[in-house]
Every structure is written in structure tokens, then in C-alpha cells.
């Protein structure tokens, strides 16, 4: 075969950064193209639909604020997931960990009786711990008993969902609004302030951005980050090198669950101001964050970009839902498609095409 073609295709061990970006963009374009077919099937011009999404999510200051509001929980959950996925711990449970963070924040905000100045910090702490605890259960079950992490984290999502339902229908049901399954409203001191002129809390956004940097340093510049990667890529080598795998798994899930918990605090203190049904609190942030982390190729810094991208999709999804009457579930179809094309195209990254004249 050598010399027959003007270029040659070789397998390569580590894909180049440019190739990763190119292939990721191709995957997104392919998903957008298939989704365009769906719009067409609904009798909506894809050009018009995409135009509405982009204009709705990015075209005005308010649209942009809405995009950022949706991107914030995705950022927090996504950064945590990149760390879990690096250790090949399949945390599918960010959704439940987020909900537990929301529950803890509501509990502290409504019932702790702490002085005003301490209330918000205590809510953040409690949210982190609750999310981390919810994540540590599957971590312990995997580290100690070898239980499948996908299943345990997923099952815990359902348990968290019904826990929230129970609280808002039962013991925490509010007295301010009769007939609704909400808790009472949090006091004003337990609420986050907004970016001026918007309804987008700035603290959780800043926290997410800062944590993305911290996580990036952790995974690329520290021994701990190196150990996480070895445990994920080669457990045998990790054992041989004396890396404590149990400790590593617990650590990644402490961080991953905790960050999802913080996202839950943000939704309570920054967006809703009360605990309500899980579908309203989260809208699948924990699941979408899986794609956010995967699209970022498990790089915490890249999550800033990918979470923003999905913020656009979610905010734009609201726009086409209200102005074109299209079902919101189209977003899930689109998310599934992107994930598929993303992993399907990974095979491309394992090869290098080079012109035979030049050698690099």
C-alpha cells in the first residue's frame, strides 16, 4: 500500500488537540444536521428554528443572562464529572447529588435558625456535604464491594427524586401557598443576588469558573490528579504503583458529588427560592452535565465552553418551545444525538492523515 496514495492513514496513540477540536465540532454539526431533519418533519424550517435559538439565547442581554443561568449548574456539575470520569468512575448521579444539595440548602435556609450572616455560607456548606454524601454511597459500594457505579448512581437519582417529592408533599410542605407542593419561601438573607438587570445569580457562576480552574490545576499539575488518571486508565498499574484506589475513588466522588450539591444550592438560593418538584428544580441538569463533561474531553477548563454551549441549547429550547410550539423533548433527542456522534467520531481521532511528501 505504501506510496500508492498521496497521503497515508496511520494509527496514533494520542490525538492532537486540533484533531480533538475538529472532530468535536464535526460531531456537533452532524447532530445539528439530524435535528434539522426533525424540525423539517415538524413543518418548521430548520434555518428559522436555529435562528430563533441563537437569537433567543445570545441575541439580547436578557437572553444571554438566561443562557448563563442555565449554564451555571451545568458548569458546576460538569467540572465535578470530568474528575469522576477521569478515574473512570461513571457518575451518572449528578442529578440526584444536585437534588440533595438543594434539599440541604432548603433545610438550612428554612429551619436552622442561624444568624443572617452565617445562613448562606451554611447553606453552601450543607449543600456540598449533602451532594458529596449522596455521591460517596455509590463510591463506597464500588470501592468496597465492586458494585456497578452506573447502576448505583442512577438508582440514587430516583431515590433523591422521590425524597424531594416526599418532603414537599409531606413534612416540608409550605403554609404560604395552599394547594401547591412547595416549601415556604426562603428568607431574603438566604437568597443570592443577581447580576444587575438580570435574574441570574453571579456567585454560583463565579464559583463555577473558579472551581473549573482549581480542578484543572488539580488534574494536570498535582500528584493527586496523576493518581486519578492512573486509576482510571490502568487499575493494575495503579495497584502496582501503590496508589490507594479506594481513597482515590472516594476523593473523586467527594468532589464530584459536592460540586453537584453546590449546583443544587445555586438553584435554591439563586433561582427558585424554595424547594419544589425535582423536575422544576433541575430539568435534567445532572444528565446534560454528562454530555458537557464528555464534550469537554474530561478537561475541567473546557467545561466552561461546553456548559455555555448547552446553556444556549437549553435557553434556546425554551424559546422554540414557546414561540414555535415544539416539544421540549426535542432537546433530549438533540442531546442524545450529540453524545452519539461524539463517541462515534472518536474513532477518527485514533488516526492521522498525512501527506506522504511531508513527514512530521
Amino acid at each position, binding site marked *: 500500500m505504501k506510496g500508492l496514495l498521496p497521503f497515508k492513514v496511520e494509527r496514533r496513540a494520542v490525538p492532537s488537540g486540533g484533531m480533538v477540536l475538529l472532530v468535536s465540532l464535526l460531531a456537533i454539526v452532524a447532530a445539528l444536521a439530524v435535528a434539522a431533519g426533525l424540525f423539517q418533519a415538524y413543518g418548521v424550517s430548520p434555518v428559522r428554528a436555529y435562528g430563533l435559538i441563537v437569537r433567543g439565547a445570545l441575541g439580547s442581554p436578557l437572553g444571554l443572562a438566561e443562557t448563563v443561568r442555565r449554564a451555571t449548574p451545568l458548569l458546576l456539575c460538569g467540572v465535578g464529572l470530568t474528575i469522576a470520569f477521569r478515574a473512570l468512575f461513571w457518575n451518572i448521579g449528578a442529578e440526584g447529588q444536585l437534588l440533595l444539595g438543594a434539599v440541604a440548602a432548603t433545610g438550612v435556609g428554612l429551619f436552622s435558625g442561624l444568624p443572617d450572616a452565617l445562613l448562606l455560607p451554611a447553606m453552601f456548606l450543607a449543600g456540598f456535604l449533602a451532594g458529596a454524601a449522596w455521591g460517596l454511597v455509590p463510591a463506597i459500594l464500588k470501592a468496597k464491594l465492586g*458494585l456497578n457505579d452506573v447502576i448505583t448512581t442512577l438508582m440514587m437519582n430516583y431515590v433523591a*427524586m422521590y*425524597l424531594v*417529592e416526599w418532603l414537599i408533599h409531606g413534612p416540608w410542605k409550605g403554609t404560604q401557598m395552599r394547594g401547591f407542593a412547595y416549601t415556604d419561601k426562603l428568607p431574603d438573607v438566604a437568597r443570592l443576588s443577581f447580576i444587575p438587570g438580570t435574574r441570574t445569580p453571579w456567585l454560583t457562576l463565579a464559583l463555577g469558573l473558579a472551581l473549573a480552574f482549581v480542578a484543572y490545576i488539580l488534574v494536570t499539575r498535582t500528584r493527586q490528579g496523576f493518581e486519578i488518571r492512573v486509576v482510571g486508565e490502568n487499575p493494575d498499574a495503579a495497584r502496582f504503583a501503590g496508589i490507594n484506589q479506594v481513597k482515590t475513588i472516594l476523593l473523586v466522588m467527594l468532589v464530584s458529588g459536592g460540586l453537584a450539591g453546590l449546583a443544587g444550592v445555586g438553584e435554591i438560593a439563586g433561582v427558585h427560592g424554595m424547594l419544589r418538584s425535582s423536575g422544576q428544580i433541575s430539568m435534567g441538569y445532572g444528565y446534560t452535565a454528562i454530555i458537557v463533561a464528555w464534550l469537554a474531553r474530561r478537561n475541567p477548563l473546557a467545561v466552561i465552553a461546553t456548559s455555555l454551549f448547552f446553556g444556549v441549547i437549553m435557553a434556546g429550547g425554551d424559546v422554540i418551545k414557546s414561540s414555535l410550539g415544539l416539544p421540549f*423533548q426535542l*432537546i*433530549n433527542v438533540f442531546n442524545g444525538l450529540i453524545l452519539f456522534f461524539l*463517541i462515534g467520531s472518536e474513532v477518527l481521532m485514533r488516526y492521522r492523515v498525512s501527506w506522504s511528501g511531508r513527514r512530521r
Partner: protein
Amino acid sequence: MGWETWVIATLARTLAYGTPLLLGTLGEIYAERSGVLNLGVEGMMIMGAFSAFAVASTTGNPWLGILAAALVGGAFSLVHAFACITLKANQVVSGLSLTMLGLGLSGVLGRGWEGKPLPVPLGEITVPGLSAIPILGPVLFQGQNLLVYLTLLLVPLLWFVLYRTRTGITIRSVGENPGTADSLGVNVARVRYLCVLVGGMLAGVAGGYLTVAYRPSWTEGMTAGMGWIVIALTIFAFWNPAMGLVGAYLFAALYHLSFRLQPWVAPELLRAMPYAFAILALVLVARGTLHKRMGAPAALGLPYTRGEE
């Protein structure tokens, strides 16, 4: 309510609820035995559920609905097979995206079908004579449908194929050691494609059973995590169809018994119980720490490329 009626009601509902779990589990056992983990069961099931409902409503024939469910479930599984076997993509992520796709697509397509009852549900059968047997008669031979019996028949059949035939040896060898199977002339990719397809069709039928027989109507997201419970049951069953039968009906029995706690426990907490049970079931069969679980196919989750292991 006398104890007899109570036992009969509980067992009959166990049989009815356990059937879709068993169907899905049998399918996933075949896929995983060949080395392909398919976490898309939930997505294939919900697509099967919707297709069965739509086709049965349109044609007026519930069996055509079941057929459609099998075909759609199978078609969905082939997407996963293509990604994992041909493109050698990550099986966990591919399965997850299949589930998202299925939940989303069925939600989009099913919008206009929501809340309508199915005029032609699968007929209930009463076996004359046998239904007169005390307790077992009313449980097994009264008010169940043909799909329940077919599923029960499938268990010995799939067990026999897996453990007593050449085909079964081939499937298991592909899941344990694809390199050796390949060197013996087995077409690893083809075996895996077929097993994933069987798994997809059974998951589709499991979904179809829900909308055509169990609760003849369509609601968005009505599988409510059953597909994930199937994956837990597959592990619980040690990848053995006979154990799958035990696991699925045991789980279904616990599910119904937990609802008997209604006077004492809040309904929301009762609804959380099946998911907690699933974790508990896995804890019960867990062996050892990070080492390979007993009975898991050695090559489960690993793509196969000739000459590369």
C-alpha cells in the same frame, strides 16, 4: 380480604409486573454474554412501549404492536451495536446516549397519544380446568395474557441455547475471550451484533408489554427506570437466564409487597423503594472488592480489534 385472596392478588400482580423485567433481563443477558454492555435498555424499552401503543391503536391489533416494538427495539440496539462493535466507541457512553435518545424521541413522537386508552389490549386468557387449582390456578391460569406464558417459555429455551448448544458456546467464548474465538474462526463482530439485536428486540417487547397489556395506555417516560433495574437484575442473575427468572419475579414481588405498607409509609417513599431494592440486591450478590465480579463475562465492555489485546 381473606389471606387467600391476598396471596392470589399479590402473586398474580407479581407475575404481571415481573414479565417485562424478565424480558428485558433475558435480552441484556445475551448482549452482555457476548461482551457488549448495553445501558440503552431504558431507551429501547420506552421506544418499544410507544411503538407498540401507536401501532396497536392504529391497526387495532395488539400483536402487530408487539411486533413493531420488537422491530423498533431491535433497530435502536443496532445503533448501539454499530457504535460499540464497528466504531469501537465507549459502551457506557453509547448506551447512555441511546437512553437519552429513546426517552426524548418517544416524548416528541408520543405527544399526541398521551392519555388515550388503548381500545384493543392484549386479551386475558383463562385456561379451563387448570384455573380451578387452588391458589396456583387463579395466579397462573386466570387473567394473564399470552405474552406472560411466552416469556416463561423463553427462559428454558434461552438457558438451553446458552449452555447446551454450539451457538451458546460461541456466544460465551466471544464474551470471555474474543481473541481465542477469533482464532478458531468465529466471526466476533457478527456474534456480537446478533446478541445485541436479540437484546434490543426483547427490550422492545418488554416496553410493548407495558402499553399493550400491563397498563394499556401511553404516558411519556412511563418506563420510569425499569430499564435500569433490568441492568441491575442482569448482574443479580449472574448472567444466567434461569437466575434472571428468579431475580425478576423476586423483585416484582418485593415491589408489590412494599405497596402493602401504604397505611404506614408515605406513598412518595414507597415509590422510591424499588430503586433502593435494586441497590440492595446488588449488595447481596457482591463478591470481593475491585476484582472481577463472579460470573461477569471477562471481555464485557471491551471492544475487540484483531491482533490487539
